[in-house]
C-alpha cells in the first residue's frame, strides 16, 4: 500500500448493532414508508367492481366483440364474471357444490349465455350480480368463517380480496384487448392483494413442488408493496436462503398469470433456481 492510500476505516466495536437497533426502534422492520391506509376487504371489492363497471360503461359496442381471453370475447368474459358471482352467492348461502367447482368450467354456461345479447343487458346483469355479492357479505353471519368456492378456501375477507384481484385482472384483460393503457390499483388495494398473495405463496409452492424447507424474503417495491419472510415447508425462523425483490405491480401481474418472471424487473439473491420455483408458484395462484 502506498503512503497516499487512505487507511481503511475500522468502525468502533458495537456501532453496527447500536445503529441498527436504534433504527428498528425508530421504525419497525416491515413497516413501509409511506404507510398505507388500511382498507376493509368489502371496500376493496366494491372499488374493484366500480372500476370494472366504469370500464364496461366506457366500451363502444364493437369493443364487446373483441377477443380477450381463452375463446371468450369481452362480452363472454363479463358473462364468466357473472357466473363467478353466482357461484360466490351460492357459496355464501352455504352450497357445498361450488366448493370444488372448476373456475372456468362452472362459469362457461354463464359466459356462453351472453352471446347475442345487448351489451347493456350483460353489463346490467354483471352489476346486479356484484351488488348482490356485497349485500350477502354485509349480512353474512360470521365474517371470519371460511368460505370454499372454486377450489379455494379462505375467510370471507380474503375471498373478497381475491375477487377484487380477479376483477382487476380481467379489467386489464379488456383494457389490453381494446388497446387502452393498463390500470394500477391504489396503494391500499395493492397492499391487500400482496398480503393475500404472500400469505398463499407457501401453499402454492408446496403444491407446485418447490423443495423445502426454504425461507424466502419477498420484497415488493413501490406504493402498496412490503416485505415478507415466506417459509416454505419449514418454520419462519429459518435463515433467509432466497431473496426476491421486484416491483409490486409486476408481482401482482405475475400472480394473475399475466406476466412471466422474465418480464419482471427482478433482483434475486441466493439460489436462482429456487427463486424461479417460487416465482412459478406465485404464477400458479391465478385461477384465470
Amino acid at each position, binding site marked *: 500500500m502506498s503512503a497516499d492510500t487512505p487507511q*481503511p*476505516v*475500522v*468502525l*468502533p466495536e458495537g*456501532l*453496527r448493532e*447500536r*445503529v*441498527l437497533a*436504534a*433504527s*428498528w426502534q*425508530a*421504525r419497525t*422492520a*416491515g*413497516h*413501509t*414508508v*409511506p404507510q398505507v391506509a388500511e382498507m376493509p376487504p368489502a371496500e376493496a371489492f366494491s372499488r374493484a367492481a366500480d372500476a370494472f363497471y366504469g370500464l364496461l360503461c366506457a366500451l363502444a359496442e364493437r369493443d364487446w366483440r373483441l377477443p380477450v381471453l381463452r375463446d371468450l370475447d369481452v362480452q363472454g368474459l363479463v358473462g364468466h364474471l357473472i357466473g363467478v358471482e353466482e357461484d360466490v352467492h351460492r357459496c355464501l348461502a352455504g352450497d357445498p357444490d361450488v366448493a370444488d367447482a372448476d373456475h372456468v368450467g362452472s362459469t362457461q354456461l354463464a359466459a356462453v349465455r351472453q352471446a347475442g345479447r345487448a351489451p347493456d343487458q350483460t353489463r346490467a346483469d354483471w352489476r346486479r350480480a356484484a351488488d348482490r355479492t356485497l349485500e350477502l357479505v354485509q349480512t353474512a353471519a360470521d365474517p371470519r368463517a371460511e368460505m370454499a368456492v372454486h377450489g379455494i378456501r379462505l375467510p370471507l375477507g380474503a375471498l373478497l380480496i381475491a375477487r377484487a384481484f380477479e376483477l382487476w385482472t380481467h379489467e386489464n384483460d379488456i383494457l389490453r384487448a381494446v388497446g387502452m393503457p393498463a390500470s394500477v390499483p391504489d396503494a391500499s388495494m395493492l397492499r391487500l392483494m400482496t398480503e393475500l398473495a404472500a400469505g398463499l405463496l407457501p401453499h402454492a409452492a408446496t403444491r407446485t413442488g418447490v423443495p423445502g424447507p426454504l425461507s424466502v*424474503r419477498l*420484497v*415488493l*417495491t*413501490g406504493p402498496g*408493496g*412490503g*416485505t415478507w419472510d415466506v417459509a416454505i415447508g419449514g418454520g419462519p425462523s429459518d435463515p*433467509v436462503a432466497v*431473496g426476491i*425483490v421486484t416491483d409490486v405491480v409486476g408481482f401482482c401481474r405475475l400472480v394473475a398469470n399475466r406476466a412471466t418472471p422474465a418480464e419482471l424487473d427482478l*433482483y434475486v439473491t441466493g439460489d436462482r433456481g429456487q427463486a424461479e420455483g417460487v416465482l412459478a408458484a406465485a404464477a400458479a395462484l391465478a385461477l384465470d
Partner: protein
Amino acid sequence: MEPTDALLVARLAAGDDHALAEIFDRLAPAVYSAALRVLGDGSGAQDVVQDVFVELWSHPDRYDLAAGTLRTYLMVLARHRAVDRVRSELRRIARQERHHRLTPTERPLSPSDQVAAGEAADVVRAAVRLLPDGQRRVVELAYFQGLSYREVALAAGIPEGTAKSRLRLALAKLETVLDRQLLETS
C-alpha cells in the same frame, strides 16, 4: 450483482431491514470518516453515524436519486449533522464561558468537558482562520470569547446589525469551509 442505490432505497421504503444492514456495511465507514473529520472525536462521530442511518431508515423518501449517489447523500448528511454538533458545542462553550465570567465562584468545567470542547473547537478554529478578517474577528469574539452581539459590535467597532450580518455570513462560510475540507479528504 450489486444492487443499485434506487433498488436499495426502494427496499428501505418497503420495510426491508436487510437493505439497511447492507447499506450500513457498505457505507458506514465513509459516513463515520466524514463525521470524524469534522468532529475529531470518535464518540461524537458514532452519534452522527447513528443519526444518519436512523434518518435514512425513517425517511428513505428524502433521498433524491437525481441529486447524487446514496454515498454522497449520506456523507453530506453526516457532514451537516457533524457541523450542527460543532455549532451546538460552540454555543454551549460560549454560554458556559459567559456564565463563568458573570458567576466566577461557580464550579469550573470538568476536565472531560474541557477536552471534548477543546477537540471540537480545534477543528473549527482551523476553519475560522480561513475566513476574511472582518468575519473571523466577529466569530472569535462571539464564540471563542462568548460575547453578545452588542459586545461584539462594541469590541469590533461596528454597528450591532453589521455584527449580526457578518456573523451570519461567517457561519455560512464556515460550513462551506468545513464542507470543502471534508470533500477534499473523502
